[in-house]
């Protein structure tokens, strides 16, 4: 421990930075896709139409009972098979994350939609808005405003989860750190550095969430 060699980190910074860019873009795209699909699932679940809400509930409960790694394996195996051609590990991973996170986001969004008072929906109906107009102009804007801190928290969790693409060797920040660690024989330096980078980003994120919450209650 007394001979930590920090030069290994500096020498490999460009490679690690590439990895971090993969992690960040995977996170950003999965958040957008997850919220979009999650909103759709939440609306299906609250639609009041039996089959639609059962399908959504079944999907959400299924995804929430299996580990993310298994979901990643599933999509690595399924996506090329279903499309008949390989689409590269980044897109397979992205699809896996969108499908996985949508289940978690849909539960958050469902709670958010339910937090909007019923009177708002009635008022929308009374002035002649259609179902989609009520969702689009009345319910969802208010719901999302209430949900922002939880959505950001979930994005931080998602960023940490992207490290799991390690199991399929997609070169995100985690995989890049581990490649450097093993080729240079510097495990302690690299994994401590990885921990520090993840901690800094996620801790900054959680402080941001706390500020959002304070702004909301103020």
């Amino acid at each position, binding site marked *: *421990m007394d001979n930590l060699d920090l030069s290994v980190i500096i020498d490999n910074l460009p490679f690690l930075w590439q990895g971090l860019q993969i992690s960040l873009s995977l996170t950003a795209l999965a958040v957008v896709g997850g919220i979009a699909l999650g909103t759709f699932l939440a609306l299906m679940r609250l639609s009041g139409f039996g089959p639609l809400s059962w399908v959504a509930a079944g999907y959400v*409960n*299924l995804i*929430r*009972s*299996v*580990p*993310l*790694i*298994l979901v990643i*394996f*599933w999509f690595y*195996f*399924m996506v090329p*098979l*279903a499309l*008949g051609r390989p689409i590269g590990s980044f897109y397979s991973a992205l699809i896996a994350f969108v499908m996985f996170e949508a289940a978690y986001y849909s539960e958050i969004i469902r709670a958010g939609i339910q937090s909007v008072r019923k009177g708002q929906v009635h008022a929308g109906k009374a002035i002649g808005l259609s179902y989609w107009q009520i969702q689009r102009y009345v319910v969802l804007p208010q719901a999302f405003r209430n949900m922002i801190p939880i959505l950001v928290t979930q994005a*931080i969790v998602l960023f*940490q*989860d992207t*490290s*799991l693409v*390690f*199991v399929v060797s997609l070169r995100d920040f*985690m995989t890049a750190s*581990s490649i450097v*660690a093993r080729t240079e024989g510097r*495990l*302690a330096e690299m*994994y*401590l550095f*990885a*921990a520090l980078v*993840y*901690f800094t980003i*996620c*801790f900054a994120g*959680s402080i941001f969430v706390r500020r959002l919450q304070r702004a909301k209650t103020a």
Partner: protein
Amino acid sequence: MNYNWNWGVLFEEQYLDWLISGVGWTFAVALSAWVIALIVGIMIGVGRTLPTKPIAHICAAYVELFRNVPLLVQLFLWYFVMPEVVSDDLGRWMKRDMPNPEFVTAVIGLGLYTASRVAEQVRAGINAVGGGLVSAAYAGGLSTAQTYRFVLLPIAFRLIVPPLTSEFLTIFKNSSLALTIGLLELTAQSQQIAEYTFQGFEAYTAATVIYVVIALGATLISHILEKHTRIPGYVGKG
């Protein structure tokens, strides 16, 4: 979609054995880690609510540290880095002679990580009990220790049963990360079967079904537990 179905592969002796052993390791890791998570989590969670500032700060730092580093990185730190950081003798023992190093590391890593999540629930539970009862306890002449022992903890523990059962389910799912340090638990075994037989669909379906059954079992237990531990008429913040 070109795919040769062969569900029989799951019942061939070798692969069935792999699955069963995978389930065994998943349970072993999840349950052992849960013991650590509960013990450490309760201590840290209680510590965060104590009036003694230094203890509260240390416990808050624990939670922030373990929550903001991915579990995968934590497992690698315990597995690859810990033996280098401790004294030479201990490090050598950890690398060469420690029995079941993957299992022990997974249990410690997963346990201490989940402890930070349990601690947050414990803290929320204690805070939900409300100031009125605490003031009443102090006015009645109870010490801080007695207030926790007779007022705060008995109520808080019953309030946090629902979120804790959801953490209990999460620890089963997170035990799959043990495969990254070479422990052949359920997910790893299903992936291994997929690789050996090219029957990925069957192999992953088997693992998925088993995880769903575990989730259903945990949900059933949690319903029973919640019914027995619910405090009738209690709304909190009284």
